[in-house]
């Protein structure tokens, strides 16, 4: 499943919702991205995330399906938030569900790498003085 939402999420609940459906899941790899207090040596007060929602949904669904096929995943969940976020808030969750850990690990990394490069979200950071659009480093 792919979710693009403003609201926060509970990791345990999101994982259990999927885990409860499959007793053959042995391995779950998760990545969670958070808003950091410092970036580019600037003290971040607020992070605004803009999204091209329909295209983001399309891109995330595509990469999710590719990952499921490539690593034979049992399921895969991607959540990305948008709107105004504070320091320490969650931004993104990628959860890969498989029988064995190798597939969950590799697919998780693959999805995050793709997401950072291709899915149309943009971050704008507000500092004590001014603000700027973020460029991703790889």
């Amino acid at each position, binding site marked *: 499943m792919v979710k693009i939402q403003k609201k926060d999420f509970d990791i345990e609940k999101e994982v259990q919702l999927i885990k409860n459906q499959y007793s053959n899941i042995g391995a779950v790899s998760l990545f969670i991205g958070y808003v950091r207090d410092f970036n580019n040596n600037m003290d971040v007060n607020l992070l605004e995330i803009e999204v*091209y929602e329909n295209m983001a949904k399309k891109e995330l669904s595509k990469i999710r399906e590719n990952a499921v096929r490539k690593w034979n995943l049992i399921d895969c969940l991607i959540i990305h938030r948008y709107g105004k976020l504070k320091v320490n808030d969650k931004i993104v969750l990628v959860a890969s569900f498989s029988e064995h850990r190798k597939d969950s690990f590799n697919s998780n990394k693959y999805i995050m790498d793709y*997401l950072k490069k291709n899915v*149309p979200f943009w971050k704008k950071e507000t500092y004590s003085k001014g603000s700027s659009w973020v460029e991703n480093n790889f």
Partner: protein
Amino acid sequence: MKIKYFAWIKDITNKDYEEINKNHPKNIEDLKKVLNSHYPDLKKHMNKNILRFAVNMEYVSTNKNLNSSDEIAIFPPVSGG
């Protein structure tokens, strides 16, 4: 034809989107010329080749032909995650 702008492109165009309904650009290169002429501040970014174009929510990297019903998006490198 609907053209959508995102992130700091929007700061240059001063709008989220616009519609061009008559004499719309025939392809992506045409569109770039139109935008450069409407928004001179966009030109230097356009020349650096960093902007990304999507037609109907699919990335395009070639000089794709455009139709009047297309939704085109122009945006800077993404920074989600």
